[in-house]
């Protein structure tokens, strides 16, 4: 928690401010969401770390995918992810987004989330306890510090791969591609 080291602030203010004011998008995807309210309220106060829930993806830079991801929710997740402004981080919450968890053989859930959107951090557990979120957040801090939390850059560079995977699962997407696809022949 090097929040009040002025020298670090002056050196790289974008990393520091990116770390210490992670605004989480309040988007209930799966069963894990019941863990998020206790995190925000008085028992495990997330605001200490600068994490507050925001209503719209435009304002958020942290995206908690909590619980299993069904095919229908994936469409909404992709839409919200693409609407978030650039330095954005995704944290997979619980075992289901990692590899499908207990719905590993279900025809309707997505097995590996990072095939469709880049994920920066995972939290094991089904569903994980609120303290696990704090572990994830601190872990994300170190990633940002080391500059390894570059999911959004990866999404930007390999956009046509992601887009192809998404179209393979969801069929056609109504909104146009976020970044111009150079060689959409492949």
């Amino acid at each position, binding site marked *: 928690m090097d929040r009040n080291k002025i020298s670090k602030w002056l050196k790289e203010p974008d990393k520091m401010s990116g770390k210490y004011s992670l605004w989480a998008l309040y988007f209930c995807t799966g069963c894990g969401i019941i863990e998020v309210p206790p995190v925000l309220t008085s028992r495990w106060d997330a605001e200490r770390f600068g994490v507050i829930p925001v209503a719209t993806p435009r304002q958020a830079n942290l995206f908690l995918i909590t619980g299993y991801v069904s*095919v*229908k929710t994936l*469409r909404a997740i992709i839409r919200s992810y693409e609407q978030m402004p650039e330095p954005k981080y995704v944290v997979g919450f619980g075992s289901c987004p990692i590899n*499908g968890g207990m719905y*590993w*053989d*279900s*025809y*309707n859930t*997505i*097995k*590996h989330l*990072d*095939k469709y959107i*880049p994920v920066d951090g995972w939290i094991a557990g089904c569903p994980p306890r609120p303290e696990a979120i704090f572990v994830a957040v601190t872990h994300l801090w170190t990633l940002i510090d080391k500059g390894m939390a570059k999911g959004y850059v*990866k999404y930007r560079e*390999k956009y046509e*791969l*992601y887009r192809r*995977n998404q179209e*393979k*699962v*969801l*069929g056609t997407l109504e909104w146009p591609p976020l970044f111009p696809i150079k060689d959409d022949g492949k």
Partner: protein
Amino acid sequence: MAKKEEILNVLKSFRDKGYDHLEMVSCVDRIKENKFEIVYILSSYGENETVILKTAISRENPQIPSAIPVFENAEPYERELHELFGIDFEGHPRLTPLLLERKYKIPPFRKDFDTRKYVKEVFDEIPFIEDKK
């Protein structure tokens, strides 16, 4: 085991008797007898009782007249059965997909639908996106 044809007037008779609330329409896949068992659950608020009605239709071309003329609220149940079991309800105004995003050759709730094989075919084919170091 009501006959497929008179299902409607049986339902009508029960409704006139007081069972005016159709709780659910569901289906059991009897793969061994090669039949679908359509189950109607009716209940009446007056006497606080419920009645279960069963009928059987063949698996090859599962067809049954829709219960909407008698109970309008049967419409979503029948759409779900159509989507998950592939049962065709004659006279149903819109048999469009209700829950699932993707198209399935064999309706997923049928016993002969092998989910593991399906998952292997669809999801495992999708390649990971390695970030080349």
